[in-house]
């Protein structure tokens, strides 16, 4: 039995510090409460003839005092916890992206290079990794205790989670949101590898085509190229009668929508465009794109998004 949990990411020690601080505060308060309780129970037991003197009539000073002290301690803890949460919420620019799909009861992981695996995640040490996660059925939750991270994986949209591992080793991966009969079997392992080992692993498990290449095939098969052009160059160029926005260079750039909002074309945006084009209509284009909701699997969707992403010029990272 070990009472110690490895800290395998850069943020894990910070979370532990917060927990230890709260543990110390709790122990102090517990000692106070139990100490006073035991003291009074002994000192003022009914049989004790100790001189009790007069009791204080006015109690509000004491009440205000402990209310204010409690409030201050709580506010400090809030700021501490929130600050760390904020940093964990926002992935750093240039994080390496890995795609995770939850499904009753397994984790499917896809790498940009086209590698895929089930119930296992391989990551390099010392690089920020961003997981883009979605579910094919119910709500799951991607949890790696050694990384001190956890996030629900929701059907119908992308949730993200990022970390930077700093200790090689193999760690538990759990689903921590009840997802049906096989919930407790929806476990796996996360392997943190040194950079050379990781490159070797990627090569050994190399796929015949990258995610983007697979996406290009699907781009043709689902008929996207019919309107958006062969290489996503845009409509009205290859004899098509439909005017559709160009997709080359789209990823990561700002887009003005028909309702005036400006959004960044990220994975979530492109996903929504494909599944619910009406809600994300680009300004000055007619609403002619059909929805692909229910016609395209999560995995194919990831590949098409990877393809559209590959059409963007490599941005500085």
């Amino acid at each position, binding site marked *: 039995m070990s009472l110690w949990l490895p800290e395998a990411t850069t943020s894990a020690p910070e979370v532990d510090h917060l927990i230890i601080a709260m543990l110390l505060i709790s122990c102090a308060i517990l000692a106070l409460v139990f100490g006073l309780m035991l003291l009074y129970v002994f000192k003022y037991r009914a049989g004790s003839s100790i001189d009790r003197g007069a009791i204080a009539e006015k109690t509000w000073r004491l009440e205000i005092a402990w209310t204010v002290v409690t409030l201050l301690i709580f506010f400090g803890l809030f700021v501490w916890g929130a600050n760390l949460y904020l940093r964990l919420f926002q992935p750093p620019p240039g994080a390496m992206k890995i795609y995770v799909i939850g499904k009753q009861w397994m984790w499917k992981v896809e790498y940009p290079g086209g590698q895929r695996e089930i119930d296992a995640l391989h990551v390099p040490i010392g690089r920020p990794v961003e997981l883009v996660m979605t579910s094919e059925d119910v709500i799951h939750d991607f949890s790696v205790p050694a990384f001190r991270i956890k996030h629900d994986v929701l059907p119908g949209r992308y949730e993200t989670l990022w970390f930077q591992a700093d200790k090689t080793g193999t760690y538990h991966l759990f689903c921590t949101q009840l997802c049906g009969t096989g919930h407790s079997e929806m476990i796996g392992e996360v392997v943190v590898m040194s950079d050379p080992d990781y490159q070797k692993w990627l090569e050994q498990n190399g796929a015949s085509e990258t995610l983007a290449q697979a996406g290009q095939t699907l781009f043709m098969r689902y008929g996207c190229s019919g309107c958006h052009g062969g290489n996503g160059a845009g409509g009205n160029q290859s004899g098509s009668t439909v005017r559709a926005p160009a997709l080359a260079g789209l990823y*990561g750039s700002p887009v003005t929508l028909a309702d005036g909002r400006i*959004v960044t074309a*990220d994975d979530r945006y492109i996903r929504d465009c494909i599944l619910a084009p009406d809600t994300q209509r680009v300004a000055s284009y007619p609403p002619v794109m059909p929805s692909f909701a229910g016609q395209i699997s999560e995995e194919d969707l990831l590949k098409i998004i990877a393809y559209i992403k590959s059409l963007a010029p490599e941005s500085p990272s």
Partner: protein
Amino acid sequence: MTLRFRRLWLTLALLLLLLAIEFGTSFFPLDRAARPLLLIPAVLMVGAVGTMFMEVGRGPEIVRLFAVAGLLWLTILLGLGSLDPMTRTDYYVQGASVK
């Protein structure tokens, strides 16, 4: 007595007027996001029914207390409840480098 009935009649007239306003404005080409403003006349109508037909002002003090409690808790439910969807933003993804 007649005063009481006159008040009721006036309330009915007010309600129908508000309904007409609500109905009429709904034909204006308001922006989609602004259309929930059509609920304003409805809220006024609720107020009129509550004060004039249900006479929230009469009866013991706790009647007002209960009415206010219901509205306060409704505000909590709708206010804090819609905080999440209204502020759920897509975060920025900059310079994804992997091809």
